[in-house]
């Protein structure tokens, strides 16, 4: 088991290195003087020189990279050109918003897609299966930005049920408010969260539902399931202990892989809904040519994804004891 964890950790580290390598090389591959790019449009010659020194542009490339990584590790993500303040705090400030959105979307996905997938598998070619097949088909085919816009059009503009953009009270505060007797805070959170969450989870929901269906169907056909039934085990137990537990393994694996896609989707959804998260920050900083901020945001998000993937890997450990032994 320790070997498994060690391998996963090693992999995570490798990925982070790859990401930093990528952002680093991109800066140097793009046309123009890296120092000038990092210093910004309104930089003076002096600023550029200083930046040059900071980046260590006179030193050999590998050393520059080392400087870069060392800075990152120490929390020095550079200074944002647009805001003029250090990049890291800017990014950190936006992290909760993105976390809120992605976690809620994932929860929604799991809570709906898996049970629904199970129902579809247990009664193949039944009503639930046909409807589900159609709905999930739509879900994986619809572009998320379009879904978001259509939802805004219908729900916010025509029906005026929900706001078109922005974020309300942070969810955590909202939940605390629920306990302390201020349910309106939670309402304020949720009002703004509904549409972006639904939009973000749409693809994943459909995808996981289909995956659940095929995974469960596969397990249902296994001999040991039949053997368990032949022992007189009631259906509820067979489904839970044998079918579902085994079916979850590939689902969890795929979830781990899909996290990257989810976060990427967050970039789009945050942009559509004006959601002040890190995804939106990435987009904005790139369009404004705020290189340090963009770089930092990308690294941060990647780190986030890698951490989540690691968590999923550990969850998988719990499910599949064979991995524990190897």
């Amino acid at each position: 088991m320790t070997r498994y964890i060690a391998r996963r950790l090693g992999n995570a580290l490798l990925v982070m290195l790859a990401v930093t390598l990528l952002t680093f090389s991109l800066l140097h591959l793009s046309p123009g003087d890296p120092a000038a790019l990092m210093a910004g449009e309104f930089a003076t010659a002096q600023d550029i020189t200083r930046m040059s020194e900071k980046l260590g542009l006179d030193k050999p490339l590998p050393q520059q990279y080392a400087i870069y990584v060392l800075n990152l590790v120490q929390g020095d993500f550079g200074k944002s050109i647009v805001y003029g303040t250090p990049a890291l705090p800017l990014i950190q400030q936006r992290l909760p918003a993105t976390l809120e959105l992605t976690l809620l979307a994932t929860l929604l996905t799991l809570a709906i897609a898996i049970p629904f997938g199970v129902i579809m598998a247990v009664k193949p070619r039944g009503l639930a299966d046909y409807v589900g097949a159609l709905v999930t088909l739509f879900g994986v085919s619809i572009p998320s930005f379009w879904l978001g816009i259509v939802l805004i059009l219908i729900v916010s503009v025509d029906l005026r049920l929900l706001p078109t953009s922005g974020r309300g009270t942070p969810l955590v505060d909202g939940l605390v408010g629920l306990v302390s007797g201020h349910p309106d805070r939670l309402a304020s959170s949720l009002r703004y969260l509904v549409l972006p969450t639904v939009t973000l989870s749409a693809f994943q929901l459909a995808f996981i539902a289909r995956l659940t269906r095929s995974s469960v169907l596969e397990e249902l056909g296994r001999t040991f399931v039949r053997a368990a039934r032949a022992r007189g085990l009631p259906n509820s137990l067979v489904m839970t202990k044998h079918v579902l537990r085994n079916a979850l393994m590939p689902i969890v694996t795929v979830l781990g892989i899909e996290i990257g896609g989810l976060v990427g989707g967050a970039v789009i959804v945050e942009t559509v809904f004006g959601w002040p998260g890190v995804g939106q920050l990435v987009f904005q900083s790139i369009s404004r040519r705020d290189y340090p901020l963009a770089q930092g945001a990308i690294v941060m998000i990647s780190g986030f994804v890698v951490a989540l993937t690691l968590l999923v890997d550990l969850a998988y450990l719990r499910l599949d004891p064979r991995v524990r032994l190897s």
Partner: protein
Amino acid sequence: MALLEVRDLSTHFAIRDGPLRAVDHISFTLDRGEVLGLVGESGSGKSVTALSIMRLVDEPGRVVGGEILLEGENLLDLEDREMLAVRGQRIAMIFQEPVTSLNPVLTVGDQIYEALDREYYDHWRRGFLWGMAAAISRRLKPDRRGAKERAARAIELLRSVRLPEAESRLKEYPHTMSGGMIQRIMIAIALAGGPKVLIADEPTTALDVTIQAQILDLLRTRQRDADLAVLLITHDLGVVAETCDRVAVMYAGRIVETAPATRLFDEPRHPYTVGLRRSMPDADHKVERLTAIEGSVPSLIGIAESQCHFYTRCPFVMDVCSRVAPRAVIVASDHVVSCHLYGEGKPLPDLSGWRGPTAKSAGAATAPIAAQQ
């Protein structure tokens, strides 16, 4: 009264081009303490018969007719919940591929307990929520004494099937064990509930010949000890010869001949059985070549009912064979055949001259069977 009596059982699968009559009006009996072999090629319907008795046939298959009488009680009339009490406790079943018979991500012990821990699993019988509640409360308040007792019983069970190092096996996972070992465990699990009938679906087919002998031996011993009735399903006549008291031969979903084992080998009456017998190498009679039965099993999808399914391959085929389904005829005590060669007042035919391929059989082979086993 026979312990298990199957009467006129039919199981069909709903397939596009017509119903697939995997099991077609079959009848047989099984008594305490006897081993009945159910023999046939792949696709003859033997496994579906077993699953039908256990009522484990999956969609699109369904039992469409007949009765399955266990100690006089028709299993087909039972509610699903009542059937749960039958499975494992009154009739048990072991399957062909031992390695896939156990859940690979659970320990062997965990799965043995399933057969021993009836009260706990009764909670699940009442529904998912009760079951989960029971599981959670067990987690929070582990019943150490009960666990120890269970473990002891499990070890005893494993020892009863001569599994070496029983104690350490409990914590292991199936993939660390060989097929033979797992099949022993499956037998142990099957017998744990004290059933009166054991259905063994090709229990040794996936195993080495030497292991095969051990498992069959084990089966025989346990069967004698517990006075079990065993339905042994196989396509291997050698297994039948060694282990079975009586034999029923299946072809294309129908039983064509039933007889005591020795009789079946000494004096087979149905042409199919004769053909099977002749295709076996025999230590007593040396032959230059083994005779094969020409042609192949017809596709069961939408097959005509009023015919003998074997007629396209039968060297003794007559006109009536393609038009009328043969009925069961008693040719001797405890020896029944379904063939138009036999009937009231007809003399026993001479089947010694197994002629070569008939004109019909030469062109009659159709697409291989699509039956679900």
